[in-house]
């Protein structure tokens, strides 16, 4: 099996088979990652560029290590240090990178749809590393990988996503991916941060965090950007933590062995308490490890689209 599209723009259009294929490849990659020698020749002769218009530590590092472990030549461009600051259009920047023989461009951009625009204008494969409030597909794939590793399947799983759904590309990608795989996804958060029409994506919208958590198999907290408070979306950090934060007491409403995920970085004591984040049910650190494996898998699969070999 091969990936259908040149690009990984989102999970909205990815089939269950494709996700399954990424998962099985990622499992192999994780074995490599956990071995003594983190070096494979899979991407030898391939060149990969990360083009980040937004700050990022973990996603960028994760992609960078994934390419390095597999022997690719990689380079990084940041918005501040590149011609972006001089007003070059995204299309022109993309075509320039393309013309240098790049195989994969990994883009993060504050505006939804920017990776789509780039993908339409370059020959290279484009991976969306997060665009505005649209999608963050590699994050959702690593979340799904983490859950599947622990539970085998997403089918019938009750997943509660808690927090700022409105601004969250992580939530959107997870909603698409998890519902595709048969999970029952519920969301809860302040009504000012609940996107209109979200129920039409197939999720259940709960009016309280407590209701969403009842009997959940998976609990996902989302990062709340503290500056949202200044825009009047919630009254105070204190009140946010009080009514929407994930703490030990609330977590008890979920199943006893419910997994706790968070895409990071964490605001301790705001959307998630330290005890929950560092507790036994938390898989937050494993998510980070799995992120590298999933990204290795995606890079590998994208460079194999034209080859005649079977899956890894």
């Amino acid at each position, binding site marked *: 099996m091969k990936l259908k599209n040149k690009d990984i723009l989102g999970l*909205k259009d990815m089939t269950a088979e494709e996700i399954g294929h990424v998962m099985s490849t990622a499992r192999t990659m994780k074995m490599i990652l956990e071995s003594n020698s983190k070096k494979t020749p899979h991407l030898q002769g391939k060149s990969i560029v990360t083009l980040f218009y937004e700050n990022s530590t973990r996603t960028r590092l994760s992609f960078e290590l994934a390419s390095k472990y597999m022997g690719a030549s990689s380079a990084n461009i940041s918005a501040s240090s590149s011609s972006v600051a001089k007003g070059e*259009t*995204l*299309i022109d920047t993309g075509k320039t990178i393309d013309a240098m023989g790049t195989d994969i461009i990994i883009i993060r*951009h504050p*505006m*939804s*749809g*920017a990776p*789509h*625009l780039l993908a339409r204008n370059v020959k290279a494969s484009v991976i969306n590393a997060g*665009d*505005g*409030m*649209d*999608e963050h597909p590699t994050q959702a794939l690593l979340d799904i990988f983490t859950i599947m590793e622990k539970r085998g399947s997403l089918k019938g799983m009750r997943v509660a996503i808690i927090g700022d759904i409105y601004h969250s*590309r992580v939530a*959107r990608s997870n909603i698409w991916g998890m519902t595709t795989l048969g999970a029952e996804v519920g969301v809860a958060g302040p009504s000012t941060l609940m*996107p*209109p*029409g*979200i129920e*039409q*994506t197939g999720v259940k919208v709960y009016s309280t965090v407590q209701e969403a958590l009842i009997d959940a198999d998976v609990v996902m907290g989302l990062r709340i950007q503290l500056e949202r408070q200044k825009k009047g979306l919630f009254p105070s950090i204190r009140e946010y933590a009080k009514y929407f934060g994930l703490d030990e007491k609330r977590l008890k409403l979920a199943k006893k062995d419910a997994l706790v995920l968070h895409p990071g970085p964490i605001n301790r004591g705001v959307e998630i308490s330290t005890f929950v984040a560092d507790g036994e049910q938390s898989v937050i650190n494993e998510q980070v490890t799995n992120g590298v494996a999933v990204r290795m898998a995606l890079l590998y699969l994208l460079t194999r689209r034209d080859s005649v070999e079977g899956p890894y």
Partner: protein
Amino acid sequence: MRVLIRNGHIVDPESGIDGVYDLLVEDGRIAEINGFIGPVANCCEIDAKGMYVLPGLVDAHCHLRDPGYEYKEDIESGTRSAAVGGFTSIACMPNTNPVIDNQSVVKYILNKAKTEGVVNVYPIGAVTKGQKGEELSEIGELKFAGAVAISDDGKPVRSSSLMKKALQYASMFDTTVISHCEDPELSDEGVMNEGYRSTVLGLKGIPAAAEAVMVARDLILAEYANAPVHIAHVSTEMSVDLIRQAKKRGVKVTAETCPHYFALTDDACEGYNTNAKVNPPLGSGKDARAVIEGIKDGTIDIIATDHAPHHVDEKNVEFNLASSGISGFETAASLAVTHLVKPGHITMAQLVEKMCANPSRILGLSKGSLAVGRSADITIIDINEEFTVDPSKFKSKGKNTPFAGHRLSGAVYYTIVGGEPVVSEKILIR
């Protein structure tokens, strides 16, 4: 020059004509309408059999981008585009550079239209100096220089107090204030209609309330000032309802919508299609149906184009960065035929009211009718001819349309301005 239009179906609600007649144009005016007009010497004859002969279309709302943004459009290209779309008179909005906030810019446009334009051009002046929303522009002088209305279109007049004064002052000069209704705090940084589609695309939504709140304010102020207000580009169900109620109460309000608000929904933004980015944004299906209802029951008086041409570079960017607007002249009439007349929502007579008579009356022009003695502004349309929208063929510099590839009914065969054919057999000849 004489023009004899034979056997066309003439529709002119103002003179009560709706049937097949011959029409004679002499010295730039309508000379005679009759069942049969005998041979006329030195006359260009047009066979309009099977076609509709309408008063030249009047557009109450367009952007010609001249002066200042000639790379988007200028008076020459804009008026040619209008003619191809069947428009013989167009009123252009003042968000040019410099803004049409003083009489010299009005005169510049009128002069340029006279030498380079092919249809009648009527400038609309700004409500406030520089459209900054701070001080009233010289509304009296604008009016006497030739401005047909005032508007800060493109943005609202934020201050309720200033809007009240504008309504009061403009009404002294028999000038209508055209209001772009948008509460900027509510629309915030939104780029499309708020709803399921904006959620899926992860684009910041503009709630329907952003328009309706301002419509409500302006209706209240117009009632208070007992002055006319014209609500531009009505796009939401809530606004239609508010205007309907106000009309019942006797408020001097008129309203317009544009073809994209009844022909499309926010689904057109799918795939981050920047050609569907427009302000106010394309609404939900419910909004589109309410706009059609408003057109049917007379709540909405005018179908205007809001022709807003942009350069390709301004649309071929991230959705958030793309300019708002649709190049509308060359599809407006066909969209109205296809989405309103063909499905039976309105008759051709109502279409003439919305696209000729009402805009002419509201802007105080003596256009929009084929009554004998009127200047011979005539549009001849075959409403049964189908075509596929191809923006590369547009005469406008702006190729920005979400209707590319749409199959539409209604081809403009002739556009006659002051007795002179500008479009003949679908071809621009001037």
